[in-house]
C-alpha cells in the first residue's frame, strides 16, 4: 500500500501485519504492481516544482534486512499523467503502460522505449465531453479500452504505429464511465457509471451486451477476481457488491451507507437501539452501532430512483419515532423549491412481519417545507395519548392524532388526522418539542418560543431573546424539567424557567447542535467557532458546564445523538460520569460518525485487538471446545463466588495459552516442553506464586523463540514483548491484592456518593 505520507508498506494480508516499510519521500497518489516485475513498483507522484502535474515513476524495492527501508532507485517512466488510480493501466504482461489525461492518451513500450501520444479532438461535439475518465488494457491482446466523460467507451488497437492506429466506439452510458474491467480472457468488458447499471459487453461489439441494473448507487470501481468467477463493484455510498460471472447479484458488503445528505438527523430507534438516518435514496437505514452493520433498510419513498444528474428527486427529510418505537413518522419532499410535493407517512411496527407497515399517508400536510416534527413521548400510557406535531414554513404547526375507524369492515382500525392548527403572528414555525410529561408543547416561531398546553391547546406563555431566530429548543428532563433551553442564531444559549417564566441564565455560544440525553438531565451542545467544533455538556439548573471538550474534530459537526447503553457503564473518572447511561455520537459534514469514549486510547484498543486476534486464530477444534468449556466453567465459578468483576482474572489466567496460539507453529518449541506450561496455565492459581512462575516460563519461551527466529519473526517477537510487559504490570497489581481491595472499596464509595 502507498500513502500520502510517502511510504510504501508491504503487508502480510493473512495476518494483517505490516512486513516492511519503504520510504520514498513524496506524496504517493497511486500504486501499481506488475506480476512480471516483482522487485519494483510503480507509483504516481506530483512533479516537483509544478502544480497539478504528476509523473509515474518506478521504485525498486530493495531486499534489505530490517523493517524500515528506503526506496531509493527511482526512475521516471511517464510524465504528465493523471492523478487518479484509474488513469494508468499496464498492458499485456507489462509490455507497455497507458496513461490518459484530459483528451490525451500516452502509450509507453518498455522494451522498445517508445512513447506514442494520441489525442482526441477537443471540440465538444453535440455538447459531449470526450475527456478520458478511465483506462484498462486487454489481458491477452494489444488492445486498450478507455472510458470517456460523455459515456462512450473507445477500444484502441494497432497503437504501435503513430498514424495507423484505429479505434472503435461503444456507447450505452449516458453519463461518465466511471470504471472499466476486462474479464480474464478478455472476451468480456464490464463498465459502470452513474446509472448504477453494470454493463457487460461481449466480444467488443456494441450489439451484444448484458445489463445488471439497479445496483443501488453509482459504481465507482469494478474489479475482477483473478479466476474470473466473481466480480465486484465499489459504490459511492460505501458499499461493495459481489457479482457472479453470469451477472447475478451474489451479495453485498455494507456498513453505514453514505447518503448524499443526512437530512433526517440522527435518530435512535427505541426498539433496536439502532441509529436511524438517511440511507440509500428514499430509504431509511437502521444501523446497529454494536455490530457495525446495517440492520435493515426501510423503503419510504417507494419510487423507482433514477440515477441521473440534475433530476429533482424526492427524499426523506424528517423522521420521528414514538417513545416505544411502535410508530414511525416520516416526511418526504422533492428538491423543488417552489412545489415541495410533501408527504407525511405514518408507519406502524408490525410484530409478525417484524417491520414497519404503512398506516397513513398524508399528501401536502403543510403548504411549505416541514421544519420539525415530534411525537409526544408518554411511555407509561397507551397509544391513545400519542400525538404528532409538525411545524412548517407555512407559519403553522399542526397536531395530528390517531382516530379509530368506526367502520368495522375497514382494513385498519386506526388512522391519523389533523386535530389542531396553531399559529403565532404569522411567523414561520421552526422547532417543536414536548416536555417530558407531555403536558407542554414548545414551538419556536422565528424569534419567539411559544409554550402551549397540550390538552386544551391554549397558548401559555412566550419567551424571546432577540436578536436572532431560535435555532434549537429542548426541555430539561428529570430534576430539571422546569427549564426550557433554546439556542439562537445570534450565538446565545438561553435557559428559561417555566415556573417563573423568566430567563434563568444565558451564555454566549454559537450552538449548532443541542441534544438532550433521554436518560439523564444532561444536555450536550456542540458549538462551531472558527473551524473547530467544541462540545459542552451541562445541566439546565446550573450555567456552568460539566464537561468541555474543545476541538472535538476539524469538521463541522452537524448532528448528534445519545444512544442509551444496555446497562450503565462503570466509569471511573468523574469527568465522564455523564456518559454513564448513554453514549454520545456525532455526525460531521463529511458523514463521519464520531463517538466519545470514556476510556483512554490504550485501554480501548488492547482488549479488543487481543480478543480479535484470539478469536480469529482459534479454529473450532475439539481442543478449543475444551478450552472454551473450561473458560466458561471458570467464569461460572467466579460468578458463584460473587466476585464483582471477573474480566481481569480471566485475562490473567491465559497468557501462556495466548502465547501458544499467537506464535506460528513452526517457531514453537516442542510440545513436550510446552505441555507443563500449558497445564499450569489451566490450573486455577490460588497463590500468587504460580503467576510468577508462568511469567518466568513465558520469558524463557520468548528467549527460545528469539533464538530460532529469523528476520520474519520480528513482529511476533515484539508482540511477545509487549504482552510480557503487561503481564508484569498485572503481576505487580496482583501482589498487592489487599491494596487493590482497598482501592475498590474507595471506588465503590465514590460511586454511591455520585449516584446519590
Amino acid at each position, binding site marked *: 500500500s502507498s500513502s500520502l505520507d510517502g511510504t510504501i508498506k508491504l503487508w502480510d494480508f493473512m495476518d494483517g501485519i505490516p512486513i516492511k516499510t519503504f520510504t520514498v519521500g513524496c506524496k504517493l497518489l497511486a500504486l501499481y504492481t506488475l506480476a512480471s516485475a516483482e522487485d519494483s513498483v510503480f507509483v504516481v507522484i506530483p512533479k516537483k516544482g509544478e502544480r497539478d502535474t504528476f509523473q509515474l515513476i518506478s521504485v525498486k524495492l530493495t531486499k534489505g534486512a530490517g523493517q524500515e527501508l528506503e526506496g531509493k532507485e527511482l526512475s521516471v517512466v511517464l510524465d504528465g499523467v493523471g492523478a487518479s488510480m484509474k488513469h494508468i493501466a499496464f498492458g499485456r504482461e507489462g509490455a507497455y503502460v497507458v496513461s490518459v489525461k484530459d483528451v490525451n492518451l500516452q502509450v509507453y513500450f518498455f522494451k522498445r522505449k517508445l512513447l506514442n501520444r494520441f489525442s482526441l479532438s477537443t471540440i465538444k461535439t453535440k455538447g459531449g465531453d470526450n475527456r478520458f475518465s478511465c483506462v484498462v488494457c486487454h489481458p491477452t491482446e494489444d488492445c486498450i479500452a478507455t472510458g470517456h466523460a460523455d459515456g462512450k467507451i473507445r477500444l484502441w488497437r494497432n497503437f504501435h504505429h503513430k498514424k495507423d492506429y484505429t479505434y472503435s466506439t461503444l456507447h450505452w452510458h449516458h453519463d461518465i464511465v466511471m470504471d472499466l474491467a476486462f474479464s480474464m480472457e478478455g472476451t468480456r468488458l464490464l463498465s459502470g457509471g452513474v446509472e448504477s447499471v453494470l454493463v457487460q459487453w461481449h466480444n467488443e461489439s456494441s450489439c451484444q451486451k448484458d445489463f445488471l441494473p*439497479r445496483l443501488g448507487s453509482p459504481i465507482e470501481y469494478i474489479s475482477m477476481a483473478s479466476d474470473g468467477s466473481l466480480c465486484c463493484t465499489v459504490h459511492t455510498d460505501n458499499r461493495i457488491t459481489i457479482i457472479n460471472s453470469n451477472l447475478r447479484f451474489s451479495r453485498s458488503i455494507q456498513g453505514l451507507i453514505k447518503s448524499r445528505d443526512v437530512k433526517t438527523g440522527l435518530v435512535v430507534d427505541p426498539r433496536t437501539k439502532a441509529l436511524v438516518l438517511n440511507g440509500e435514496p428514499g430509504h431509511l437505514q437502521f444501523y446497529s452501532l454494536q455490530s457495525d452493520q446495517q440492520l435493515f433498510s426501510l423503503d419510504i419513498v417507494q419510487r423507482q430512483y433514477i440515477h441521473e444528474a440534475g433530476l429533482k428527486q424526492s427524499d426523506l427529510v424528517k423522521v420521528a419515532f414514538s417513545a416505544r418505537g411502535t410508530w414511525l413518522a416520516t416526511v418526504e419532499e422533492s428538491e423543488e423549491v417552489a412545489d415541495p410535493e410533501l408527504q407525511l407517512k405514518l408507519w406502524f411496527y408490525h410484530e409478525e412481519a417484524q417491520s414497519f407497515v404503512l398506516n397513513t399517508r398524508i399528501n401536502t400536510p403543510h403548504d411549505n417545507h416541514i421544519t420539525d416534527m415530534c411525537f409526544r413521548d408518554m411511555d407509561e400510557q397507551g397509544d391513545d395519548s400519542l400525538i404528532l406535531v409538525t411545524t412548517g414554513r407555512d407559519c403553522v404547526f399542526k397536531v395530528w392524532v390517531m382516530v379509530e375507524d368506526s367502520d368495522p369492515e375497514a382494513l385498519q382500525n386506526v388512522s391519523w388526522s389533523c386535530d389542531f392548527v396553531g399559529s403565532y403572528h404569522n411567523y414561520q414555525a421552526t422547532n417543536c418539542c414536548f416536555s417530558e410529561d407531555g403536558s407542554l408543547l414548545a414551538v419556536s416561531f422565528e424569534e419567539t418560543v411559544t409554550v402551549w398546553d397540550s390538552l386544551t391547546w391554549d397558548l401559555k406563555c412566550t419567551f424571546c431573546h432577540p436578536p436572532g431566530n431560535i435555532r434549537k429548543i429542548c426541555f430539561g428532563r428529570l430534576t430539571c424539567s422546569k427549564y426550557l433551553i433554546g439556542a439562537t442564531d445570534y450565538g446565545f444559549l438561553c435557559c428559561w424557567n417555566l415556573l417563573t417564566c423568566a430567563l434563568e441564565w444565558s451564555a454566549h455560544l454559537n450552538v449548532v447542535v443541542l441534544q438532550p440525553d433521554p436518560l439523564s438531565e444532561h444536555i450536550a451542545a456542540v458549538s462551531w467557532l472558527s473551524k473547530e467544533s467544541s462540545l459542552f455538556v451541562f445541566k439546565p439548573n446550573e450555567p456552568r458546564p460539566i464537561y468541555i471538550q474543545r476541538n472535538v474534530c476539524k469538521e463541522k459537526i452537524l448532528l448528534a445523538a445519545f444512544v442509551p447503553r444496555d446497562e450503565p457503564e462503570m466509569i471511573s473518572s468523574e469527568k465522564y460520569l455523564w456518559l454513564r447511561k448513554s453514549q454520545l455520537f456525532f455526525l460531521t459534514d463529511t458523514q463521519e460518525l464520531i463517538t466519545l469514549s470514556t476510556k483512554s486510547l490504550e485501554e480501548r484498543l488492547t482488549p479488543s485487538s487481543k480478543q480479535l486476534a484470539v478469536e480469529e486464530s482459534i479454529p473450532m477444534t475439539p481442543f478449543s471446545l475444551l478450552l472454551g468449556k473450561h473458560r466458561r466453567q471458570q467464569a461460572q465459578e467466579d460468578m458463584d463466588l460473587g466476585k464483582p468483576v471477573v474480566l481481569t482474572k480471566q485475562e490473567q489466567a491465559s497468557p501462556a495459552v495466548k502465547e501458544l496460539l499467537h506464535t506460528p507453529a513452526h517457531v514453537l518449541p516442542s510440545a513436550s516442553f510446552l505441555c507443563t506450561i500449558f497445564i499450569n496455565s489451566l490450573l486455577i492459581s490460588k497463590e500468587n506464586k504460580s503467576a510468577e512462575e508462568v511469567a518466568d516460563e513465558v520469558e524463557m519461551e520468548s528467549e527460545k523463540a528469539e533464538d530460532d527466529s529469523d528476520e520474519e519473526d520480528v513482529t511476533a517477537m515484539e508482540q511477545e514483548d509487549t504482552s510480557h510487559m503487561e503481564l508484569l504490570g498485572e503481576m505487580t497489581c496482583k501482589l498487592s491484592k489487599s491494596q487493590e481491595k482497598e482501592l475498590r472499596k474507595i471506588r465503590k464509595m465514590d460511586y454511591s456518593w455520585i449516584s446519590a
Partner: protein
Amino acid sequence: MAAYKPVVVQACPKLGERITQDTLYWRGYKTPVQIKEFGAVNKIDFSPAPPYNYAVTASSRIHIYGRYSQEPIKTFSRFRDAAYCATYRDDGRLLAAGSEDGSVCLFDVSGKAPLRQFEGHTKPVHVVGFLSDKYRIFSGGDDYSSNLWDIPSATEIISYSEHTDYVRCGCASKVNADVFITGSYDHTVKLFDARTKSSVMTIEHGHPVESVLLFPSGGLLVSAGGRYVKVWDVLKGGQLLVSLKNHHKTVTCLCLNSSGQRLLSGSLDRHVKIYSTTSYKVVHSFNYATSILSLALSPEDETIVVGMTNGVLNVKHRKPEEKNENSQKKRQPAYRTYVKGRTYMPKQEDFCVSKPVKRVLRKYDKLLRGFQSSKALDAVLEPPIMLHTPEVTVAVMQELHRRGTLRSALAGRDEKQVNLLLTFVARRVIEPRFTPVLVTVADMITDIYQPVVGQSAIVDRQFLKLQEAIGKEIDYQEELLEVLGMMDTLFATFTKKKDTCLEENKSNGVTEIIEKNRNY
C-alpha cells in the same frame, strides 16, 4: 439489488357516502313504480300470507294490490268518508279499517261488504289492529279513547279513556295476546293489558306520537313523534334506550325489516332513514319526491312501498339476484394440473433450483422500466385507462415529469393524439387531486404546440375548452374565497376580546376545514 418499483398510483379515498354492505343491499332495488291514489296515503299494510298483497288506505277507499300489479286487484269503497288504517289479520284473511264517521269495519279479503261493523267511537277512528289471538280488535279514535272489540259478537269489550288527545297510532304485541299499545297526540304512549281496567304503563315521548312499533320480541318499543324516534325498553319499565334525531321534519311512520335487524323511518322531510337496530346509527337513507306519510316493507324485503301526502304510491321491487353464469360456464382446468409436480419430494442428493417468481407489471410500468417515456404515455392514454382510472394516467404523467422526460413524451404527436390529450386535460384539470400535475402538462402542451395553433380546427376547439374550464374554475375559487372572507368576519364577531389569540387560532382551524372541503 432492488427490483423495479412500479409507479405508485395515489388512491384518493372517496369522501362522502361510504360503500358498506348496507348501501349495497338497499341500493339493490329497481327504479320505482309510481301509482296515483285519490288522496294522501295514510296506511300501507302487507298481507302476512303469500302472495303478499298489500292494502293501501287512501281517501275513502282501500285498494289491494298484488305483488307486481300496478292496478288494484280489489277495492273496498263502501265508506261514506275517509277510511283509515286498513290492517290485515295475521292469517291475511281479514282486514280491519277505521273510518271518519267513527265506525270500525271488518272485511273478508275475498268479500265486498263488511262482515262486522263496530260502533262506539264518537269521532273518527285513525287506528285499528288485531290482537295476536285473532279474535279481538283494538281501535283508537279522535274521541281520546282506545277500545277493544270482540269479533264474533261485534261488541265492545272494554274502553279506555286515558289519553287526553287524539289517539293516532297503535300496535299489538305479537307475544302476548292481551297487550296492545297506543300513541296519542298528548305526547304519551300507553300500554294496555286487556285483563286490567287501566293502562299498565305510560311512556312520555315528548312530542305528539305519530307512530309506534313493538319489536317482535315484545321487549322494545319504538315511538316516533316530532323529529324524534325513540326506543324504549318495555321490560325495564319504559326506560329510554336511545333517542334518534335524524330527520328535520316530523317522523310519520316506522317499519321494521323482515329480519328485525334494521329499522326504517319515514318523515315529512321526504327521507326514509334506515337504522341498524344494534348500533342505532343510520346505515342508509332514501330520498323521495314529496313528504312521506306511510311506509311498508314486504317479507324478505322484496318490495318497499311508500305513500306520500300527494297521493302517490311509490313501489320499489328488489332486483333479482344476478347469477354469474359466464364464470360458471368457463371450464376450470382439471385438478391434476394444479397438483402436477407439487407432490414430488426432492431426494437428498437432488439439487433444488427454485423457479423464480415472475412479477406481473402493468404495460406502462414495463415501458417505464425500459425508459420508453413516449410509449408509456401512449399506454395510459388508451380510453379504458383514461376514462375509468384517470389517477393512473396522472400518476404516469407525474412520474415522467419526475424523470424530466415529460416534455419529450408529450411532443411529436399528431392531431388525433393531441386532441385526446387535451380532452383529458381539459376535463380533469379542475379536479383538485390532479390539478398540480395537469397544470404542468397543460403548460407544456401549450408551449410545444403553440407554433401549430390554427392549423387544426379540432385542436383549436380543445384549447378553447381548456381555457373555458380553467376560467370557470378561477371564478369559482374567487367566489369561494369571498365566502371564506365573509365567514371569517362572522367568526371575528363571535370572538371575545379577552382571548384574542386563541380565537384566532380556532378560526384558522375552521378555515382549514373549509379549505380541505374545497380541495376535495
